């Protein structure tokens, strides 16, 4: 079982939760309040939903050997556009208005994804700078939409996306899970997954096998932008407002981290959507843990460094082997490991 590639990320997640339980027994308390579930675990799911979504999109991009730095900007833009539309409505609570806002925002996200995909797949620009362009310009676009102000909205239907509850659970996590399910079915029940993995694993081989890699890569960027767009709606709906400058700041780093913790290599090829979801939950748990344990703001970074390091070492087969050896042969220090060919390919 330890062979399974999701084993160690799951162990890490459970270990972190266990740590919380020990230090802070009430961490797991869940109550029923105002018709919905209430507790730290629920917060992790609710606040982690946008990250989960983006990590799902990012996974596919990473699997094609790409990277998308612009997700944060797309988050900001989509939230901004939706809130702008709603704030202009006579009746902010109209479901139709909220739906239109969502549609517009996702439409724009789609266009942004097309743009990224065009730069990468058609013009052949290296993904990191191709998406850097939108990362830089996108913040500006978001602020252009909001006029540099925070747009506050009061729309019940819209807020449902971010802070609402359905069947007692945060609707955000339900949306994220729905997207995950759709993506997983789409990718694994069709041949998309195999094709993406081939294009990422060996692009030239994929080309010669007749794959339409341009379209495929393009598609992953569009999907990633859509995920980021939905995440943007959640983030803005959660606080009933759109903040062009701060929404989704640095979320690209967290998303990539989630993807990598989930076992997908940045060098492309094999990917695991489930792994990314677990990675995202791990990161969100870490954040919530920091707040719940009352770690001082100036120590957060150190704390994160230590936890992520521990997670990664736990996942590293070399480290586990060394640890096991040390435990077996107690006093003499372990001999130098011969260099392994598999190293970092």
């Amino acid at each position, binding site marked *: 079982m330890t062979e399974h590639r999701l084993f160690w990320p799951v162990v890490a997640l459970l270990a972190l939760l266990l740590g919380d339980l020990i230090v802070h027994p009430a961490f797991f308390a869940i109550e029923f309040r105002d018709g919905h579930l209430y507790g730290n675990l629920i917060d992790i799911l609710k606040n982690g939903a946008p990250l989960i979504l983006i990590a799902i999109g990012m996974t596919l991009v990473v699997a094609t050997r790409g990277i998308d730095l612009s997700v944060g900007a797309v988050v900001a833009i989509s939230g901004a556009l939706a809130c702008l539309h709603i704030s202009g409505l006579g009746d902010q609570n109209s479901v139709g208005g909220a739906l239109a806002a969502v549609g517009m925002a996702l439409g724009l996200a789609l266009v942004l994804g097309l743009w990224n995909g065009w730069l990468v797949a058609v013009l052949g620009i290296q993904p990191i700078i191709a998406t850097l*362009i939108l990362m830089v*310009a996108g913040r500006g676009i978001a602020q252009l939409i909001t006029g540099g102000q925070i747009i506050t909205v009061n729309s019940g239907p819209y807020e449902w996306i971010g802070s609402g509850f359905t069947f007692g659970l945060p609707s955000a996590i339900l949306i994220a899970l729905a997207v995950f399910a759709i993506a997983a079915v789409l990718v694994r029940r069709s041949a998309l997954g195999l094709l993406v993995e081939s294009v990422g694993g060996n692009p030239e081989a994929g080309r010669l096998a007749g794959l339409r890699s341009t379209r495929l890569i393009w598609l992953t960027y569009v999907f990633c932008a859509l995920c980021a767009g939905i995440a943007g709606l959640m983030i803005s709906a959660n606080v009933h407002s759109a903040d062009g400058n701060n929404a989704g700041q640095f979320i690209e780093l967290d998303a990539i981290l989630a993807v990598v913790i989930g076992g997908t290599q940045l060098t492309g090829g094999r990917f695991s959507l489930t792994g990314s979801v677990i990675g995202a939950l791990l990161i969100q748990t870490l954040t919530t843990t920091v707040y719940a344990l009352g770690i001082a703001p100036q*120590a957060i970074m150190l704390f994160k*460094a230590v936890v992520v390091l521990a997670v990664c070492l736990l996942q590293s087969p070399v480290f586990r082997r060394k640890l096991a050896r040390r435990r077996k042969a107690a006093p003499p220090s372990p001999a130098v490991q011969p260099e392994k*060919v598999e190293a970092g390919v």
Partner: protein
Amino acid sequence: MTTLDRIKGYRPRQRHLPILATMVMLIGAYLYGASSYTAFGSGQVVLDLFINNAFLLVVAVGMTFVILTGGIDLSVGSVVALSTVVSADLLQNQGWPVLAVIPAVLAIGAALGFGMGVLIQVFEIQPFIATLIGMFFARGLCYTISTQAYSIDDPTVASLAQTQIPLGGELHISIGVVVALVVVAVAAYVLYGTRFGRTVYAIGGNPKSALLMGLNVGRTRISVYTLSGFCSALGGLLLVLYKSSGDPLNGVGLELTAIAAVVIGGTLLTGGSGYVLGTVLGIMVLGIIQTLITFDGTLNSWWTSIITGALLFAFIVLQRLVGRRVT
């Protein structure tokens, strides 16, 4: 054969194309600026590009090594910040002399880089995460030393910081520029003319093969991250000279700027191809975009971002088109 024919007959090597294209673009941008804004044409604007970006240049040189091996180093911004904070702390609070602070800071940077290199090489942790851990760690150390920026009023630092090296006319550069240029020259030499440098390229080309060719992949990879840590620390020291202060918030997002500069300079993020000179040009591109916008001075904040993105787009796309045209 007329000169024109000879120029026409010149066929640059494929791998030099990105650099040539970037150079053409830079000259174009400079000419545009000089014809549109007064004082842009004065040579000092170009020198200011170097003065303002000297520390970044040093950081990006270290990053170039890392990217050439196919890796990435996200920790540079934090290590820069840590270096400034440690310098400030040692100079101001501990009363260390400048000559002791410099080696200490460089050693810390190199040690952090070494640690990340070991994580990557020995424990096979992906460079992205290993250096992200380094990023968190170094930034965390900054905050534990100080959550506030503070000034350095050490007289040596002040005089070094304010020394201007005249170049005739009104033109001058700073000490930081000299250091950065020396670093660039040494790096270019190492990459071109030493076994270590060639091993760096080999690892970027195909790490598995490099190992089977009998190259010392492990040591080189660790060295490269150590070198990047060292360069970041040196960049931090230059930043101390530039600002005479230490600030835990220094260099937030710097890693992206450095990576962008390296990649715009034509280095492949997958490793194995690129030049230090390209990195210099990459920094110039980012610098000149910013300078053009500042000289224009009529854009508000969001248009600044949008136009920056648009100019970046123009540069990158033209760079590709120019590159294709020349072939």
